[in-house]
């Protein structure tokens, strides 16, 4: 078909599969995102820690290098659940900053110029739109979190042998589920804030605020009510519990408070951390709230009251 053929004509060719259309959104978004040198550099740097981890794993199993340096790396830094948990936490935080660069403008730019009707007047549903926008963050963060994490696990399993691999396969699922939960919550939060806060700088500030302000609020609740249940409001504490639970490191800490007057204990309070299921439930509620807020904004038309 020539470019200069200036007539209206119908399209009679083949169509792309319906299930794959949500991927059009991230594909086009990445064209914009990777145009930024800052972002590209940061994305490349995100692979440094997985690279370092792979070197550490290699050092663990290379007796020549261990002999030359006279170091016992196996005792210094064992490759166990804590090692992989720290990997998930570190890459999760890196992913958070990556999401801060990409996420806040994704929905807002469509809402600002009333672009949503153009998406939704096509064979493209609201849920496909939301999934498409979320997958911008999900694909990017997957590339730096669980995907290299599983490669590290496989590398360690390969060097350590089949018995280690079979015994510790649960760690692979912990890496995957722990990272994916984090990514999903980040993707939902960033899209929700993007839909409600159209100014990019304010949206980024709001995202930061969501991770830090509730921590302070949770501490106030804990102090005032003499409890540890305030942590249920703290997103960082929730993820700390969830990750620890997945890697088998969760310990339900107990605190004690005693009010002493004239040398006598007049009041004694035992403060228990919320159980693990409460952290999962709180995360579920946060996701549900985000979806509800998104559904209020992602519409083909504006509701005028």
């Amino acid at each position: 078909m020539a470019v200069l053929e200036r007539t209206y004509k119908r399209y009679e060719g083949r169509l792309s599969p319906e299930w794959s259309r949500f991927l059009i959104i991230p594909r086009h978004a990445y064209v914009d995102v990777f145009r930024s040198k800052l972002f590209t550099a940061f994305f490349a740097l995100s692979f440094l820690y997985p690279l370092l981890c792979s070197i550490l794993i290699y050092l663990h199993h290379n007796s020549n290098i261990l002999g030359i340096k006279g170091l016992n790396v196996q005792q210094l830094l064992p490759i166990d659940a804590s090692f992989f948990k720290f990997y998930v936490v570190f890459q999760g935080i890196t992913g958070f900053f990556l999401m801060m660069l990409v996420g806040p403008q994704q929905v807002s730019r469509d809402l600002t110029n009333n672009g949503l009707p153009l998406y939704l007047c096509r064979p493209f549903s609201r849920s496909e739109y939301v999934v498409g926008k979320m997958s911008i963050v999900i694909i990017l963060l997957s590339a730096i979190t669980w995907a290299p994490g599983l490669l590290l696990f496989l590398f360690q399993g390969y060097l350590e042998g089949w018995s280690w691999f079979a015994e510790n396969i649960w760690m692979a699922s912990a890496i995957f589920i722990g990272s994916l939960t984090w990514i999903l919550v980040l993707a939902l939060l960033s899209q929700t804030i993007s839909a409600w806060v159209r100014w990019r700088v304010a949206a980024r500030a709001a995202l930061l605020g969501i991770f830090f302000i509730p921590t302070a609020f949770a501490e106030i609740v804990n102090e005032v009510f003499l409890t540890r249940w305030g942590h249920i409001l703290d997103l960082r504490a929730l993820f700390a519990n969830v990750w620890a639970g997945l890697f088998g490191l969760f310990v339900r800490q107990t605190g004690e408070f005693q009010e002493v007057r004239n040398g006598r204990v007049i009041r004694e309070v035992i403060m228990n951390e919320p159980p693990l299921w409460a952290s999962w439930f709180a995360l579920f509620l946060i996701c549900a709230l985000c979806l509800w807020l998104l559904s209020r904004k992602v519409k083909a038309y504006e509701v005028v009251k």
Partner: protein
Amino acid sequence: MDNALQKTPEPIPEVAVLPRAPELVAAAPVIDLDGLSVTFGGRPILRELRGELRGRAIGLLGPSGAGKTTLMHTLLGFHSPSSGTAHIFGRDIRSDAKQIRTQIGYMPERDSFIANMSCVHFVRLMAELSGLPSEAALERAHEALFYVGLGEARYRKVGTYSLGMKQLAKLAQAIVHGPRLIFLDEPTNGLDPPARQRMIELIRQIRDSGKAHILLSSHLLRDVEECCEEILILKEGRLVVYCNLEEERKANKKFLMLETRGDQKTFAASLSTLGCEYAVTGEHRLKVILQEGTEIRDLYRLASAAEMQIRRLTFKRDSLEDIFLKAMENGHGGS
């Protein structure tokens, strides 16, 4: 009864169905409204709309708040009907909204674009979302932009476009996937006369290509008159007039205004012998509706016999404005 037509014309009924061209009656309906009602917060916005639209270009008229945009949005599946339904190319909007949308292009009334994208990138994205594979989408995006006249500016960001260019970009994204039905909501809004003319020209070209039907919503009667062959007038959510403009124009050719000198009464009486309806509108003025088979020379013959002069004879056509105003006066909108 000198000042009134002998046969008093019937008032326009609640839904006035005016004659349509026979070739259009034969075609399958593009849009079939089947008692379609839409309610927002308990307030009816569209009420029991019924009718079959078959024309190549259908004009949707009505004052602000009549429900034109809501009708388009409902047909696109943005709103759920509170009762009734509609069919587009035989598919039910309630159950087949997604399939229907593959065949529709939509140009919204308000500014709609993604500001920090080049126009070709924007139109390509829209084509891909309509289901076109990436390469075909890019090719058609270039073609659509050349077609609407934005070929030279296609690599500029849409946010930097003038209002007229943004309208053309909206049209390009509406036609890029080659839909069978195109919804145009106020396409000439805010355009200067040359840009408006260009837009009207494009709409007519698409209509005349015979490859797509157009549903054009506008409050500018001239736009609709220039582009459409069928019109649908809404008032307060009700369909008050639905007619074929071409047929209307043909019918109006037989409506004459006469300026006379001489014995008008004898002439008027003799008009009855020809079966013509007439109304005396002044001392020397007559309105006449010619019957089938009656020629103008018959009038001159009668005038000669009545020793009366016909000083002036003009065809009076009901313009779209007349039809619209009549509909606004007679249509029973509201509850």
